[in-house]
C-alpha cells in the first residue's frame, strides 16, 4: 500500500565527476530529516554515488550532460531516489545488472555498481532506452523514528 508523499526535492546538475560527492551528501542531508540510522545514511550515500557515477561515466561517457535527481519520502518513511540521464542508454538491462558485468575495458571498474545499489536499498528498478537514456529508481524504507 502506498502512502502519500510528505516531502520531495528535485535537482539537476552537470554530469561532472566533481558533483558525485555533492549529490550523495545532498540526498543524505535530505534523508536525515527522517532521523534514520547512521548505517542507513551511509548506504544511501553509496547507492546514490553509484547511480550518479554511472550516469556520468556510462550514460554520458564522461563527455558531460545533465543528471536529473528526484528524491522523496512518504509519511511511512519510504525514501525514493530517482537518478535519470539522457545519455546512451543500456542495451540489455538484465545483463548489465548482473554482478561483475561491466562494459569497461580499462580494468578499473568491477561491475559492482548495480549490485551495490540493489543490496544497499530495498528495491532497485532500472528502465533504459538506447539513445534516450536511463532511469534508476531506488526505494528504501527507513527504520522507525521512535527511538
Amino acid at each position, binding site marked *: 500500500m502506498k502512502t502519500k508523499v510528505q516531502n520531495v526535492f528535485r535537482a539537476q546538475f552537470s554530469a561532472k*565527476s566533481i558533483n558525485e*560527492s555533492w549529490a550523495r551528501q545532498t540526498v543524505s542531508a535530505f534523508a*536525515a530529516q527522517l532521523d534514520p540510522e547512521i548505517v542507513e545514511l551511509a548506504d544511501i550515500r*553509496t547507492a546514490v554515488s553509484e547511480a550518479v557515477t554511472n550516469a*556520468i*561515466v556510462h550514460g554520458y561517457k564522461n563527455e558531460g550532460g545533465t543528471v536529473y535527481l528526484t528524491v522523496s519520502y512518504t509519511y511511512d518513511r519510504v525514501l525514493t531516489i530517482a537518478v535519470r540521464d539522457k545519455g546512451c542508454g543500456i542495451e540489455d538491462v538484465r545483463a548489465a545488472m548482473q554482478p561483475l558485468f561491466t562494459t569497461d575495458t580499462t580494468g*578499473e571498474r568491477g561491475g*559492482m555498481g548495480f549490485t551495490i545499489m540493489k543490496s544497499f536499498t530495498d528495491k532497485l528498478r532500472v528502465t533504459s532506452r538506447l539513445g534516450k537514456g536511463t532511469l534508476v529508481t531506488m526505494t528504501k524504507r527507513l527504520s522507525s523514528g521512535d527511538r
Partner: protein
Amino acid sequence: MEKLKCTISMSDGVLNIRLSGSIDHHTVRKIREEIDGELYKGGVKQVVLDFGGVDFMDSSGLGLILGRYTKITDMGGKLTLRGLSDDIMKIIKLSGAEKFIPIEKIEKKEKPTKPDNADKKQEDRKRSLS
C-alpha cells in the same frame, strides 16, 4: 573530509600506502596514478593498502583495489588490505574479493568493539544530524 590523500612509504620492498578521505570516481584517478607511479619504480614485493582514514568508498574504490591487485600480482608482488571499516567491508564482500586478497584484522584500539562504541555512535549521530 571529501578530498582523497595518500601517504606512501617504502621499506624493505614493502610499499605502505595510507589513504584518507573519500574514494569515488572523481577522487580515485589521481591516487591511482600516484600508486602506479610507485609500482613502476620497481622493487616492490608487497603492497599494504591502508584504508584507516577513509570515510567513504563506492565501487570506484573496489575498482582501485581490484586493478592494483592485478597489477601487483602480475609484477610478482603481494597485496594486503588494512584498516577496512564495516562499510568498506560490505562492498568488498559483495564482490567476493576477500576470498583472494588478504585482509588484516583491525586492531582493537583503532576500532572499539560494541560496548564502548555504543556511546560514540550516539555522538556521531548527533553530530551528523546537527
